[in-house]
C-alpha cells in the first residue's frame, strides 16, 4: 500500500466540498461521533439529506462566514491505498492556497460544473496545475444530475477542455462525469450514465501510478544535519543525515559535494541499525563518504556523473503570496531545501494573466500574482530545473522583516 496525495480545484459552487464529503462518506471514512455532529447540524440539502460539504468545514470563523480560509488536509484509506487530500478554498486567496496545496500533490482534480462548462476559473485552475507540474489531472464534470446525465453535454465540455489541455501541455488527463450530490461515479459507478464506460473517481485514484519511486538518475541529497557522536567508541564517526530528494545512491557511487565541488565515494549508508546497499528517493538516511571532506548543513551530495546546475542568477516562475507587494530594491532570503541565502529579484520579465494566459510587462508583483523573474542569489544554488526534478527545482522566498513566506519559486533556467 502506498500514498496518493491529491488536491481539488474548484469553487464552492462547483460542489468541491460535496465531492470530498462524498469520497469520505462513501468510503466509510466518517466516524460515528462526527456523523452525529453532522446529523444534528441544521444545514441540510433541499431534499433533507445531509449536506456532506459540512465535513470539510473547519474553523468557527469559516462556519460563521460560510467560507474556507485555508488549506485543510483530509485523510482516508481504502484497502488499496492511503489518500491525503489538500482541500483548497475557492475565494480571493485562491491562487496562494492552491499553489500551496498543489506543491506536494501528484494528482489534481479539477471540477467543472456541467451547467457552465469550461469557464474562466477552469482556465485558472488548469494553468496552476501546469505551472506546478502536477503529473495527473482528473477533470470531474460535476452536477451531471442537473443536466439529465446528458452525454452530449459531457462530450461538448471535454472537447473544449482538450484544447485547453493541449495549450497548457497537460499530458495525462482523465475525464469523469459525476454527481457529487447523488454519488454518481464518485465511489459507486453510476446507474444513470450507461454511456460512460470508464471508472468511478475512487477506482481511478486507487490505481493511478503515484510515481513515489523516482526513477531519475539525478541522485541528490541535501545535508540537513551532521551526526557526530564524539564518544570514545565513535570518535571518528561522521554521518551526513538527509532525505534523498531524487534518484538513488549506491555503495561505492562516485559523488560530488556542492558547492565545494569536492569528490568522494559513498562508503556506507545507514538507516537506524541497518546498513542498506542503496538509498532511494524519499528515504531519510545517513551517508558516509570515504574521504574526509568538509560538509555542513546546506551542502548537497549529488551523483558525480549527473551534476545539477550551479548559478547565482536564475530564471524562475514566481507566485507572490504576501499582502505586501514585491520590493525589487530589498534583499529577501531564499530557502532551497536545507540551504538559505540572501537574494534579490533583479528583474521582472513578465506577469501572466491567469484568466486569459496572456503575458504582459509589469513593474509590480502583488498577492496572487504569477510571472517570470530573474533572481540573484548571494551564494550559488545547486539546483535542477523544476520540470526535470520538482524537489530540487523549487524554493521559497522569505521576507526577513516579517519572516513570512512571501513567494514560491520554480526554477526554469540558469542565466548565463
Amino acid at each position, binding site marked *: 500500500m502506498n500514498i496518493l496525495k491529491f488536491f481539488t480545484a474548484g469553487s464552492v459552487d462547483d460542489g468541491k466540498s460535496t465531492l470530498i464529503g462524498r469520497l469520505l462518506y462513501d468510503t466509510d471514512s466518517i466516524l460515528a461521533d462526527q456523523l452525529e455532529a453532522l446529523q444534528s447540524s441544521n444545514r441540510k440539502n433541499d431534499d433533507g439529506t445531509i449536506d456532506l460539504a459540512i465535513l470539510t468545514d473547519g474553523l468557527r*470563523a469559516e462556519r460563521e462566514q460560510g467560507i474556507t480560509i*485555508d488549506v485543510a488536509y483530509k485523510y482516508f484509506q481504502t484497502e488499496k491505498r492511503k489518500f491525503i487530500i489538500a482541500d483548497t478554498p475557492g475565494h480571493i486567496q485562491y491562487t496562494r492556497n492552491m499553489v*500551496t496545496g498543489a506543491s506536494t500533490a501528484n494528482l489534481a482534480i479539477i471540477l467543472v460544473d456541467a451547467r457552465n462548462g469550461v469557464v474562466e476559473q477552469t482556465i485558472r485552475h488548469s494553468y496552476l496545475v501546469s505551472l506546478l507540474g502536477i503529473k495527473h489531472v482528473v477533470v470531474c464534470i460535476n452536477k451531471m444530475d442537473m443536466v439529465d446525465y446528458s452525454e452530449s453535454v459531457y462530450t461538448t465540455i471535454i472537447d473544449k477542455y482538450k484544447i485547453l489541455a493541449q495549450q497548457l501541455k497537460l499530458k495525462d488527463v482523465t475525464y469523469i462525469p459525476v454527481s457529487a450530490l447523488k454519488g454518481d461515479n464518485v465511489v459507486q459507478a453510476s446507474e444513470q450514465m450507461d454511456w460512460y464506460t470508464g471508472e468511478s473517481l475512487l477506482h481511478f485514484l486507487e490505481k493511478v501510478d503515484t510515481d513515489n519511486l523516482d526513477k531519475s538518475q539525478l541522485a541528490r541529497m541535501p545535508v540537513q*544535519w551532521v*551526526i557526530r557522536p564524539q564518544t570514545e567508541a565513535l570518535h571518528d564517526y561522521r554521518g551526513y543525515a538527509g532525505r534523498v530528494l531524487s534518484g538513488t545512491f549506491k555503495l561505492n557511487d562516485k559523488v560530488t559535494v556542492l558547492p565545494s565541488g569536492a569528490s568522494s565515494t559513498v562508503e556506507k549508508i545507514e538507516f*537506524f541499525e541497518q546498513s542498506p546497499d542503496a538509498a532511494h528517493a524519499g528515504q*531519510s538516511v545517513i551517508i558516509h563518504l570515504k574521504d574526509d571532506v568538509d560538509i555542513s548543513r546546506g551542502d548537497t551530495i549529488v551523483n558525480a556523473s549527473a551534476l545539477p546546475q550551479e548559478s547565482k542568477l536564475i530564471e524562475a516562475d514566481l507566485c507572490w503570496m504576501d499582502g505586501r507587494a514585491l520590493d525589487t530594491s530589498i534583499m529577501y532570503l531564499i530557502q532551497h531545501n536545507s540551504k538559505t541565502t540572501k537574494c534579490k529579484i533583479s528583474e521582472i520579465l513578465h506577469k501572466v494573466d491567469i484568466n486569459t494566459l496572456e503575458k504582459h510587462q509589469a513593474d509590480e508583483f502583488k498577492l496572487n500574482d504569477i510571472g517570470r523573474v530573474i533572481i540573484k542569489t548571494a551564494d550559488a544554488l545547486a539546483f535542477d530545473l523544476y520540470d526535470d526534478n520538482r524537489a530540487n527545482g523549487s524554493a*521559497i522566498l522569505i521576507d526577513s522583516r516579517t519572516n513570512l*513566506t512571501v513567494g514560491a519559486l520554480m526554477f526554469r533556467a540558469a542565466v548565463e
Partner: protein
Amino acid sequence: MSTYNFDYLDELEAEAIHILREVAGQFEKPALLFSGGKDSITLVRLAEKAFRPGKFPFPLVHIDTGHNFQETIDYRDKMIERIGEKLIIGSVQESIDQGKVVEQTGRNASRNALQTVTLLDTIAKYEFDACIGGARRDEEKARAKERIFSVRDEFGQWDPKRQRPELWNIYNGKIHKGENVRVFPISNWTELDVWNYIRRENIELPSIYFSHQRDCITRNGQLMAASPFLNMDNEDVVVNKQVRFRTVGDMSCTAAVESEAILIDDIISEISASKISERGARMDDKVSEAAMEDRKKGGYF
C-alpha cells in the same frame, strides 16, 4: 535501477525524520514535548531514527498535571533510562502553588486547561524556540488546517488567518525573538497509521492502552477512571469494568472505552471498526463545537 519497497509507513516515517532533522538544523533551542501518550512515544522512536548513533539535539519536556496515570509516569521514567536523553518536567502543581493558575472546582474540574500556562512558562524559562509535538491533522477540524511548522507569538497564540504557506517539503522556521514554533512531524499520520507503525516497530506502550480491570464512574455519558482527582459525590456509582484508554491525558479528563483488546492486533481491529473517533473520548473537546480552535488560539498544544 534496483527496485525497493517503500510503503506508506516508510513514507510517513521518512517525512517525519526529515522534519525532525529540519528542527535540529534550523533552531537553537528545540524541545520535544512528551506526554507519555502513543503519539509522543512514536516521536521518540522517530527521533532515534533521525539522530542515532548521536544524541538527540533536544531535551524531552513533560508537562506534568500531577493527575497522571501512574502507569504513564512509570513508563516515562523507564524510557528515559533506556534512551539516555535529558528530561525536563514542567509542573502544573508548581504553577498552582505559585498562584499563577487557580485550580478549577466543581464536578467537571480538570487540570487540562491549566497546563497551557505551565507549558508557556516552561517554554519561556528554557527559551525554547521550537517545540515538537505529536498532534495529527486527522484528530480534529482545527488541526486539519495547521501547518507542520506552526508559529506562535509570545503569548503562545495561534492565528489561523496568518499562517505561512507551506510549500513542497520546505519548512520556514524563521521567527522573531519571543516567538516559537510548534512542529508536528506526524501531521499526516492517522490514528490507524500510528498503531500500525507501533505494531511494525514493536514499540512498547504504557499498559493503560490495553484492556484491564478498573473502577470507573460514568460522567456526561463517558466512562472515567475513579480517582482522587475526580470530584466525586454520592451520585457517582463506582463500577468495575474491563476498559482501556485510547489517549493518555490528565486522569480527570481522559475517558476510557470498554474493551477486551489485550494485543496491538486487537486494538487495530477495534479501531478499524470503531464508531467513536479518538478525540471523541476527550471531554475537553466537548465543551463547544469550536473548543479545540479556542484552546489552540490560547496556546494549547
